[in-house]
């Protein structure tokens, strides 16, 4: 088992004829992802890597049943493409593009909430259910170096750190059930709470690692969710950036969500709430794997 994605998940690829999709699609299908159709405006009738391409989402849905649409479209076209998938009734929309304008993200997320669409991203690096399926660039050409099937759910606001955590777990022989990069932007669809709820119901997942960042209240929400009994399995959490609270530096950070505003979103507060909720908090990266081992009862 896994969450959101396995080898039977029927995937639609939007922006299928673009360079990014042409490069990544084969790595996804080779890994086991079931890509049923692609969409590219004006390119209906073509095919990419053996996958039929349609001009619109609605046309694709006439011919195929789809569980999830992954968007390989550039940031400036994300709003239109995502709204098309949402209006067509695609249950889950996964947005990879970095740099989506805030107003566009806000509009599509608002419509998604009204339609009950599950959104991952924007600015999600990818999603992987090891040994079954993967979406986006995560794992590159040799995903087996980074991912291994197993009992740990990994969810991260940072694609790079999520991949790094999976790499170190895999190196220790500890596999993952599903890895989800939530996206580092200020406005994203699903966050930790939604993932924890899914991991709670997934019998394969025994522990969840969450990598948070300064800013927003996504980690605080997760802590409240855990404390209220919404998630009952062990959680290992890492949230860097506490040094910003005492010595603000103009460090250039590429994540638009990573801003502490009006005292909200400070890492110290996030970690405190998570600790109170019973999570194991890693103050340093090297503590993540040992804490996972401890939570799994391996030591």
């Amino acid at each position: 088992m896994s969450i959101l994605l396995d080898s039977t998940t029927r995937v639609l690829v939007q922006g299928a004829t673009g360079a990014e999709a042409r490069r990544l699609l084969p790595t996804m299908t080779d890994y086991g992802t079931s890509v049923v159709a692609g969409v590219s405006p004006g390119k209906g009738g073509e095919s990419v890597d053996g996958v039929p391409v349609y001009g619109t989402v609605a046309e694709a849905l006439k011919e195929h049943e789809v569980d999830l649409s992954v968007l390989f479209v550039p940031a400036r076209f994300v709003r239109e493409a995502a709204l098309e998938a949402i209006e067509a009734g695609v249950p889950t929309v996964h947005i990879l593009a970095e740099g989506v304008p805030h107003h566009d993200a806000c509009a599509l997320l608002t419509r998604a909430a009204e339609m009950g669409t599950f959104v991952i991203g924007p600015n999600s690096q990818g999603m992987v259910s090891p040994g079954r399926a993967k979406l986006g660039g995560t794992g590159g050409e040799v995903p087996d170096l980074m991912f291994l099937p197993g009992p740990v759910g990994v969810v991260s606001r940072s694609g790079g750190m999520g991949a790094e955590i999976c790499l170190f777990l895999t190196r220790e022989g500890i596999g993952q059930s599903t890895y989800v990069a939530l996206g580092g932007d200020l406005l994203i669809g699903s966050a930790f709470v939604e993932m924890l709820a899914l991991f709670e119901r997934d019998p394969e997942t025994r522990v969840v690692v969450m990598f948070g960042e300064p800013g927003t209240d996504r980690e605080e929400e997760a802590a409240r969710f855990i404390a209220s009994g919404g998630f009952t399995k062990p959680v290992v959490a890492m949230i860097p950036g506490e040094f910003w609270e005492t010595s603000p530096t103009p460090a250039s950070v590429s994540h638009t969500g990573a801003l502490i505003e009006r005292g909200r979103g400070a890492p110290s507060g996030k970690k405190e709430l998570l600790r109170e909720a019973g999570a194991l908090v890693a103050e340093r990266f090297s503590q993540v794997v040992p804490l996972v081992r401890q939570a799994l009862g391996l030591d």
Partner: protein
Amino acid sequence: MSRLLENDSLALLGEGGLPVPRFEVCTGAEEAARALERLGGRVVIKALVPVGKRGKAGAVKFAASVNEARVHADAILGMEVRRFPVKKLIVMEALDIAREIFCSISFDAPRKCPLILFSAEGGVDVEELAEHHSDKLLEWPVNILEGLKVEDAIELARRAGLTGDLAEQAARAVRAMYGVFCAHDCEMIEVNPLAELADGRVVAAAGVVQLDAQALFRHPELEAKLGVEGGNGWRPFTELEMRMREIDAIDPHVGAIRFSELDGDIGFMVTGGGYGLSSLEALLDEGGRPATTFDITPGRYEEKMRRAVKAVLSKPGIKGLLLAGNVSNFTRVDIKVAGVVHALKEAGLDFEKFPVIIRYAGPGVEEARRLIAEVPGVEWCEDEASIEDLAKRIVARSYGSDES
């Protein structure tokens, strides 16, 4: 930073239908004196800098005569406001303010919507309002697909305690702000104070607009106004930061650089949003003093890396260099490393004495390892090296406590 200066902010708000005072931008005392004459003889002179809290810094003065205008203009032009030297002034007609209102619009991450903050008691900054008068700070989420309707804006103003004509004028002002917020892809607009004048008019007495850097492609005319005066939002750009901007500009389509100069002595060029932040924390924990932060988006950017590394190495007093990044998916690390190696060879340093530690993982790692071996003394770390291993190692070697 994508914050417009006050003159551009007010101009944008004015075009959007929000009444704003008449103003002129000046660079000298005599010019300020002439502006006073044109603006009716009573003006407020403010430093035109890309940061707030100017009043607290003493950079906002009232002048009622040509002579006062000269004196205050001279004084403010010699000041530095939160690290920004004052080079320009905004001279604004003085308003006869009866009441100060606060209004801002930004995005709320938890609710995923535009959020209006409004207080019938403005004039103080939002941090103070939030901390001491949170009961008087109204939060008003807006459905971005529906917009801010007339009746909702009036309800907002009434709920904040305004009545009658003032409530209606304030509502019009908030709707004008919201219109600007959407039309120009703003990230944040703050009008403080939104002033009720003695004659009953409602005017934006001060305003700041922050644009969404990710949406500037839709607003080239606004991007042109951003310039470099805003620095990194913290202080003006340093020489090294300006040099890095030039390096970044050699190819706008490949690998966008984000760079800050800090006052430490270890060149810190660790890429990736979360990985960079975690590594910076580890370096500080180990007692390291970072001299830079650096990030570059994926791409084939050998030449940019070459120039960027050279620039960082040129910083006076630098004691060591850490180059690292999280495991990459498709970006070939050997391309990055080729640029690094080129720069290191050109630098001609003794890398047994000047420590350079490199950790990259991902495609092209074998070639990268081979390239690094061409520069004696440079320390290559395999991908099992963790964030803290690297931080410990660069601190130990840079500060001479290396016992290995």
